[in-house]
């Protein structure tokens, strides 16, 4: 049988860059095929070519053995290729059914939409692929995982037999990832071919039947998941020895930089989301906060940064109480912050890079003098950040959305580090960025630590927590429940603490 997809010699050039260079890819009918690679390795370009969004400069595409000349997504859909983008394209105010049929509405006479037929077809699709969703829910009421399911159903509704998922797990919490993987396996069982783009290697190894690794626009190799480890894959992706987070010798001093005492943040109802948290971070120290997401880490960080007002307790920065001070006051005192969601909390996407490097520090020199902005100062800093933190960009005049995720993150980390903070709150600093950029961020944090920076590191990456932290505290249901030495703990044990299993008390 001919493969579902066969790409031969695909080459795509953009001005000054070869995004895809002689790529070969063969995807068998009904398999889950993962495409791995760093940001900028050419994964997205390749998928856009396969989905008809961009024509290749050279090479041939064969679908089910037939050579095709793709030049529009509509044509790709006709050939049974569907794509679920990383950022969802749903109308919040419409129901699931309305979203699914949008653009492919079954019609009755006089241009009326035949909702019954749509519903029937939707039910069929749901049954055939084991995807469960309530067609009458408004999309705005759905969880992220459910929205993604709607996107997948939308594509299947249009008759897709080949499904492209672009970093589908990037937006999901672990439980939702499990659910997604269950769905993907059911899709496979019903004969769908799945192309899965990801750079979380554990996930790839778990779900994929075959893995193709891209690096700098070329195919590095195609492997089976039982032949390789995550470590091997990562080395294929970056083409050299894999960096590991490693704190090196301790630089902890006895000078307290950030002190949190009996902090309480009330949630909805009686329960506090941050409950009696006390913590000290010294200069030169990295304290890691471990915990399953949603156990109060976000609220704790928001209280420290000053976005939310705590109800009880105190926060002291460099000996000065700041419990109820403004965000700006804290930042001017030397509080740096790398937020978890860089698009939502970290960047002005439509602004230039040099304007972005001032955000959060715009009241300080050299970004401004008194009430006046200093454009020269801003540009100067931006150039320095570009060079020192290896932000890959043609110049500092482009807007932030032009950069890849890893480079956006390096820009944010650079912005915070250049300001010379005394305390850094790093909230999932390497989430969703590739291995190379991750290593760069680790280096930056380590470097600053050796110069006396006090860091509070919140992360879901257990290797990162264990590798970087001087001390790990575990947060569970709003409380700090354990204090651990990273030299003596394994990820598995840490996981047990995070779920409460290792505490002897169990979960209520």
């Amino acid at each position, binding site marked *: 049988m001919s493969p579902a997809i066969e790409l031969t010699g695909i080459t795509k050039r*953009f*001005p*000054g*860059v*070869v*995004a895809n260079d002689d790529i070969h890819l063969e995807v068998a009918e009904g398999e889950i095929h993962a495409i791995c690679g760093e*940001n*900028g390795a050419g994964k997205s370009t390749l998928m856009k070519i396969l989905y008809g969004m961009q024509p290749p400069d050279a090479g041939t595409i064969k679908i089910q053995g037939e050579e095709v000349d793709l030049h529009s997504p509509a044509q790709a859909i006709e050939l049974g290729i569907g794509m679920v983008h990383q950022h969802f394209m749903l109308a919040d105010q419409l129901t699931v059914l309305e979203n699914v049929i949008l653009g492919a509405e079954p019609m009755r006479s006089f241009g009326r939409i035949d909702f019954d037929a749509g519903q029937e077809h939707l039910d069929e699709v749901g049954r055939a692929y084991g995807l469960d969703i309530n067609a009458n829910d408004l999309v705005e009421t759905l969880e992220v995982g459910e929205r993604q399911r709607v996107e997948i159903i939308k594509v299947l509704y249009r008759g897709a037999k080949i499904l492209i998922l672009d970093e589908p797990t990037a937006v999901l919490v672990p439980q939702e990832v499990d659910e997604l993987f269950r769905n993907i396996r059911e899709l496979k069982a019903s004969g769908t071919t799945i192309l899965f783009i990801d750079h979380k290697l554990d996930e790839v190894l778990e779900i994929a039947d075959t893995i193709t690794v891209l690096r*700098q*626009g070329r195919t590095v190799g195609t492997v089976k998941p039982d032949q390789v480890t995550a470590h091997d894959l990562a080395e294929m992706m970056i083409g050299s020895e894999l960096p590991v987070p490693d704190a090196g010798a301790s630089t902890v001093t006895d000078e307290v930089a950030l002190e949190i005492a009996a902090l309480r943040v009330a949630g909805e109802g009686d329960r506090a989301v941050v409950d009696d948290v006390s913590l000290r971070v010294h200069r030169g120290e990295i304290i890691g906060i471990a915990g399953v997401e949603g156990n109060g880490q976000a609220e704790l960080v928001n209280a420290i*940064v000053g*976005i939310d007002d705590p109800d009880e307790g105190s926060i002291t920065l460099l000996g000065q109480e700041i419990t109820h001070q*403004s*965000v*700006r006051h*804290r*930042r*001017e005192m030397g509080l740096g*912050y790398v*937020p978890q969601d860089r698009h*939502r*909390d*970290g*960047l*002005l*996407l*439509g*602004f230039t890079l040099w*304007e972005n490097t*001032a*955000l*959060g*520090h*715009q*009241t300080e020199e050299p970004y*401004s003098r008194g*009430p*006046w*902005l200093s454009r020269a100062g801003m540009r100067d800093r931006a*150039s320095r950040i*570009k*060079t020192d933190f*290896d932000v*890959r*960009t*043609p*110049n500092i005049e*482009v*807007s932030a*959305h*032009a*950069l*890849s995720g890893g*480079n956006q993150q390096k820009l944010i980390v650079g912005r915070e580090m250049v300001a010379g903070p005394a305390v850094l709150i790093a909230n999932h600093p390497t989430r969703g960025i590739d291995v190379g950029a991750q290593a760069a961020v680790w280096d930056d944090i380590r470097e600053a630590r050796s110069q006396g920076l006090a860091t509070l590191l919140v992360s879901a990456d257990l290797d990162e927590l264990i590798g970087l932290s001087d001390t790990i505290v575990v947060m569970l249901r709003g409380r700090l429940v354990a204090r651990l030495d990273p030299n003596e703990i394994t990820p598995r044990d840490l996981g047990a603490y995070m779920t409460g299993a290792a505490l002897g008390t169990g979960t209520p």
Partner: protein
Amino acid sequence: MTDRLSHRVLLASAAPVAAVVIAVVLSSIVLLISGSNPLAAYWDMVEHASKLETQVDIFNRATPLYLSGVAAAIGFRMNLFNIGVEGQYLLAFIVAAHLGAQVELPSVLHVAFILVVAMAVGGAFSGAAGVLKVTRGVNEVISTIMLNAVVISGLAAWWIVEWQAGGEISATGGRVGTEPIADSGLLPDINGLLELFTREVGQGKKLTGVLIVALAVGIVYHVILNRTVFGFDLRASGANPTASHVGGIPPKRMVVIAMTLSGTVAGLVGMTELMDTGYYPSNPISLLGFTGIAVALLGRNHPAGVAVAALVFAFLDVSSGILQISGAASREIVEIMKGVIILTAVIAYEVVRRIREREEAAAAAAAMAAGPAADS
């Protein structure tokens, strides 16, 4: 580099030029269908506009439109839709007219007093909508629309009766309005200034002194927005309130400040008329507030862009009169042109934005592949 610069300038000016060209083409079609000769109509408009007196009319019309456009633009920059400019300027107009007539002050102070009252009233009234938004979550579109009604069919209608001047107040007679302000409170026309460069202005036309105020507002708007930390905060908060909050910019305060500033400028819109006649009439020039939204849209909220947009709209408004007189076409054609210009401008700006985004992304991808510390 000059190549890249000229490319950017070309892209930036492509949108408004395309909008006007398409508007002319579509209007021509409408004119042809309605049996008029488009060339004759356009010739009448251009010929009329080439006269000095018409140009004075255009500037007098453009002045309040510009102020109204800047007021809307301040809101837009903060992602706020201040539909209340209409109510804000009418309220500021009537209160300033009334209070201005109650006081006796030396000339400069008197004018300043009236302008400050107008700005304060507009700012406070608009700021109230901002406070409602941040404390009660009332969408500013809803609250400002309702506040418009409060002014137009409420306060202004009541006060015009309450503060009505006894007898006839204007030289031409027959008009009803608030008590006239003494001459010391009126900004003189700036015909003298204009005549330094041109011939004498005829037909009793007077170039409004508020034009100077409007220019000052435009310059201050530009400087604050682009050169100060506060302006950065405003633009940032409008573009991404959550990231700005993390960056130390309190979003709620920025909403109240932006609404207040927008209303402050809105308060000046009615001053062109007040400084000319000295009283609030029973039928003041209206709809300037709503037109200002279109002007801001066409001018991309940019200080100079809004000025050009205000002139384009003023030209069309003034031309409608000559079309009626010459009979070359129905005067409503200018309303069609305004509508088409706005629609095509919105589309053209979006197209240009996408082109620019794509070019940037391609350039960034190139830099990534080129490796560390690419050309700097």
